């Protein structure tokens, strides 16, 4: 060996494997405008389709007259429910076991519902055609308030369900009821409340909002009549699921359907579901024999494709006088809109909301969720969170602050007192989950020390005294949030979508020159999979990350996977990558043993190759093993070096974190300033710290948006009044606060590389931190709970109601 021989550290660094702040490889094309999105797909003779939508939230459709529309130059067809009935596609199944109109069939049930699909030679002609379609409506009374949905005289929304007393998740109590879901021990919990020294009860609402990715939902469908094959380019977070759904509902053989998800400009849950646009574009292509493109505009995206949240959570905690929690009781009224199109695993009508016991050791708990129909858009997707986990985290984190206030305890102290202890893991929660690992006390104390929490509380006390003396008009709030997520859906024993177990997959092929390709069942929408997946492979099998091409989104080439949402990519597909890599490594070891003329057991792995134990100069690099795999494998062995893994996780993963928001609010204007935001995340093993930091920044910015103003609001008549970025809060660099990030590392014991997932943690933990900061600021004026979103006007209104403003 000469001086030029790289050291072990240099060899490891050259791999850019796990733990490396590797720059995102996909950003080379994204930052140069060279991405390839659905709207970049332009096919010869391609047509454009767009929707006639209902201005009414609830009305009978008396007549649709398309005669004038068909006279518009360029308009080729107007598809209505009647057209779709001829191919049995007027309705489609939802992921939640309900059915949904593709196009209005006799009735419209929410404003902007799809009524007719106009197909034309270009988008302008389609729009002109839409203006000429005359629809005669008979308005019906709208049902907007979910709390009135089960009134005896509430209007009947779903006439198609008349007489159906059984829904997909058990009995229905009322014509607008969808399901009741209960978990936990009611008797034990009621008993805990009877014995309790102290109880709190509060109706905590998590308002309706929307994932609003910058790229809206869209697709291009192209049907080849000769081959009988349908190709769909679309903004799909789960391309394989879309292929199966299309096959099932359009009765096309699955091998004749090709689904391609090219680059995606953000998903955040909005792009999980199947929408009428996809069905109509596919039918239009089959009817016309030409490719048909459908692209949502911003208003359509905000008002018609899947919303998020809209949970109204009546929350009660029982506790001892010294602040030990003894019971939790939650009732949720879930507004699902006109159709139950929630994108949850099939058996979970309220997602994993039963994570609502949070990070605390509740001896007993009971949860009931009632889902109801209203005249609002369908959906209920997990907007940058695992299924209903951000609702659960907001619920418990707000409730713990309310309890602290009632007990006169510091909210951080109350949390420390009730945390699940490190030695209790794996921990069985009162509502049925098995938490894999955690060290909550360490994370919380690190947050408190780094932010100098005690000094901030002291400052707050001084400011409050000054406020009362009339020396300042500014109030200060400290928002503590300690969240536990449940991500990585999921184990086949309890997670499926339409009967398909929620595994995920990876196929790795190594080429003779020591490079390779990894194909995945997941689909990045900006998460940076092309970068991080290669890093896992680099560490596992010693091929530099730069030499691994990652490919996702083409159902013809990718192994079947359930897609990317609910922070499942790293916990599930990340594990599949490691397992596929380990299969390759096992074969590589046999090849190396043959080449080095020793027994396999005499070899040891050393960063990027195998070495004979005790003979350091006898070494074969992975690069050389790749060549040998195509050239001189041991007798009886098949050539080549590739592997595929379908990973069925044994459990979910449970990332956690401790956040603190320091906020100042001017009571006279309601204007708030986020003085400081500290986010400590524990996502287990960290694959790429730079990408984690970016994910945390993005998730916190969305949490900030939601807590401080972002809302899909309906007026009493059922109009969406926040249907554009003029009214729907989308923070830019101007509004966004500075983020401080930090971490602890508690690996998942059951995951091959110990990783837990992080993309959604900041949204889950961030929303309660902001809301707790606002509530903490106002608490000394006598308030217990102020509903989100906390925009300037509502802050001012709160100050006024509390008598702080004349």
């Amino acid at each position, binding site marked *: 060996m000469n001086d030029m021989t790289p050291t072990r550290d240099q060899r490891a660094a050259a791999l850019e494997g796990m733990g490396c702040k590797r720059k995102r490889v996909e950003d080379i094309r994204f930052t140069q405008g060279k991405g390839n999105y659905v709207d970049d797909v332009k096919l010869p003779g391609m047509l454009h389709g767009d929707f*006639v*939508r209902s*201005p*009414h*939230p609830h009305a009978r459709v008396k007549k649709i007259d398309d005669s004038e529309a068909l006279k518009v130059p360029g308009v080729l067809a107007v598809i209505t429910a009647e057209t779709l009935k001829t191919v049995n596609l007027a309705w489609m199944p939802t992921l939640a076991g309900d059915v949904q109109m593709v196009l209005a069939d006799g009735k419209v049930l929410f*404003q*902007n519902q799809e009524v007719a699909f106009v197909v034309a030679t270009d988008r302008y002609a389609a729009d002109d055609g*839409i*203006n000429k379609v*005359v629809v005669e409506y008979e308005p019906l009374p709208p049902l907007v308030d979910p709390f009135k949905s089960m009134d005896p005289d509430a209007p009947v929304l779903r006439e198609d369900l008349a007489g159906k007393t059984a829904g997909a998740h058990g009995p229905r109590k009322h014509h607008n009821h969808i399901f009741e879901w209960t978990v936990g021990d009611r008797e034990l919990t009621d008993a805990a409340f009877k014995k309790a020294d102290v109880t709190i009860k509060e109706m905590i609402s998590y308002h309706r909002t929307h994932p609003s990715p910058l790229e809206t939902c869209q697709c291009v469908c192209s049907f080849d009549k000769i081959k009988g094959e349908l190709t769909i380019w679309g903004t799909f977070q789960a391309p394989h699921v879309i292929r199966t759904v299309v096959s099932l509902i359009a009765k096309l053989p699955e091998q004749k359907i090709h689904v391609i998800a090219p680059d995606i400009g953000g998903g955040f849950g909005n792009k999980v579901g199947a929408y009428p646009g996809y069905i109509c574009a596919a039918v239009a292509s089959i009817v016309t024999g030409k490719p048909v493109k459908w692209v949502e505009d911003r*208003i359509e995206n905000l*008002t018609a494709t899947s919303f998020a949240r809209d949970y109204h959570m009546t929350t009660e905690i029982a506790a001892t006088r010294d602040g030990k929690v003894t019971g939790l009781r939650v009732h949720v009224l879930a507004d699902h809109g006109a159709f139950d199109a929630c994108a949850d695993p099939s058996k979970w009508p309220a997602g994993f909301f039963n994570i609502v016991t949070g990070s605390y050791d509740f001896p007993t708990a009971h949860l009931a969720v009632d889902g109801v129909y209203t005249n609002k858009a369908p959906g209920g997707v997990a907007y940058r969170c695992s299924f209903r986990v951000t609702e659960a985290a907001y619920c418990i984190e707000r409730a713990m602050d309310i309890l602290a206030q009632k007990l006169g305890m510091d909210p951080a102290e109350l949390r420390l007192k009730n945390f699940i202890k490190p030695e209790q893991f794996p921990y069985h929660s009162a509502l049925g989950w098995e938490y894999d690992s955690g060290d909550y006390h360490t994370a919380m104390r690190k947050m408190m020390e780094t932010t100098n929490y005690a000094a901030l509380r002291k400052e707050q006390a001084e400011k409050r005294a000054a406020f009362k003396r009339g020396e300042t008009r500014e109030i200060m709030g400290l928002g503590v949030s300690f969240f536990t997520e449940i991500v990585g859906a999921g184990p086949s024993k309890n997670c499926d979508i339409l009967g398909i177990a929620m595994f995920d997959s990876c196929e790795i092929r190594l080429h003779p020159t020591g490079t390779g390709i990894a194909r995945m069942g997941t689909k990045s929408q900006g998460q940076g999979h092309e970068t991080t997946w290669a890093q896992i492979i680099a560490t596992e099998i010693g091929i530099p990350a730069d030499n691994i091409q990652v490919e996702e989104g083409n159902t013809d080439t990718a192994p079947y996977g359930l897609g990317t949402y609910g922070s499942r990519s790293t916990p599930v597909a990340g594990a599949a990558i490691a397992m596929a890599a380990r299969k390759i490594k096992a074969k590589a070891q046999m090849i190396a043993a043959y080449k080095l003329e020793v027994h396999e057991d005499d070899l040891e792995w050393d960063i990027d190759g195998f070495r004979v134990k005790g003979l350091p100069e006898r070494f074969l690099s992975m690069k050389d093993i790749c060549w040998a795999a195509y050239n001189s494998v041991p007798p009886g062995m098949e050539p080549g070096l590739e592997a595929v893994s379908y990973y069925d996780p044994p459990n979910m993963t449970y990332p956690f974190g401790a956040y603190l928001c320091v906020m100042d609010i001017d009571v006279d204007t309601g204007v708030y300033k986020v003085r400081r935001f500290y986010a400590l995340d524990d996502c287990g093993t960290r694959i790429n710290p730079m990408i984690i930091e970016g994910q945390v920044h993005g998730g916190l910015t969305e949490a900030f948006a939601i807590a401080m103003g972002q809302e899909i609001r309906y*007026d009493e*008549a*059922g*109009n*969406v*009044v926040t*249907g*554009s970025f*003029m*009214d729907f809060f989308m923070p830019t660099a101007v509004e966004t606060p500075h983020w401080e990030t930090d971490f602890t590392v508690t690996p998942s014991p059951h995951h091959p590389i110990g990783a837990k997932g992080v993309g959604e943690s900041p949204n889950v933990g961030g929303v309660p931190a902001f809301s707790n900061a606002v509530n903490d600021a106002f608490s000394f004026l006598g308030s217990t709970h102020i509903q989100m979103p906390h925009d300037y006007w509502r802050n001012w209104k709160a100050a006024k109601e509390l008598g702080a403003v004349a």
Partner: protein
Amino acid sequence: MQMNDSQRIPASREKVWAALNDPEVLKQCIPGCQSLESSGPNEMTATVVFKVGPVKATFGGKVTLSDLDPPNSYRISGEGSGGVAGFAKGGASVRLESQSPDVTVLHYDVQAQIGGKLAQLGARLIDSTARKLAGEFFESFATVVGGPAEPAEQVSGGGKSWLKRLTGAT
């Protein structure tokens, strides 16, 4: 959306009343009105171009006069559809008060409801737009009925665009 206001018109109550019942006068005064025709006793059909914020649409609809108490008061109500732009319905109770033989004060009390794209995009502009349109209507009405002699006395919100009113620019 609700608003009430009054307008001073330099004409006798009888003259004002006659004008309030004259489709030709109404057509001249309703902002954006392209046609207004009598379609029966106390009933008219109208086509109006209506603009709120970024939404502009042609509305076709029916206008009905009811609770007639000549020459003191009536109620005018209308319902129209602008196709993809949405729909609007509303009405106004109008009362005439004779201040002198040549001056009449017209009191109005308006309720209106909008739906569809108009409501989605224009919600925050509805109030100011409605006030502006009402102002324009009564300004023209005063001019048509009483001649251009006197400037309008009370036109809330009229004159300035919503943007100028928001920014305080003049």
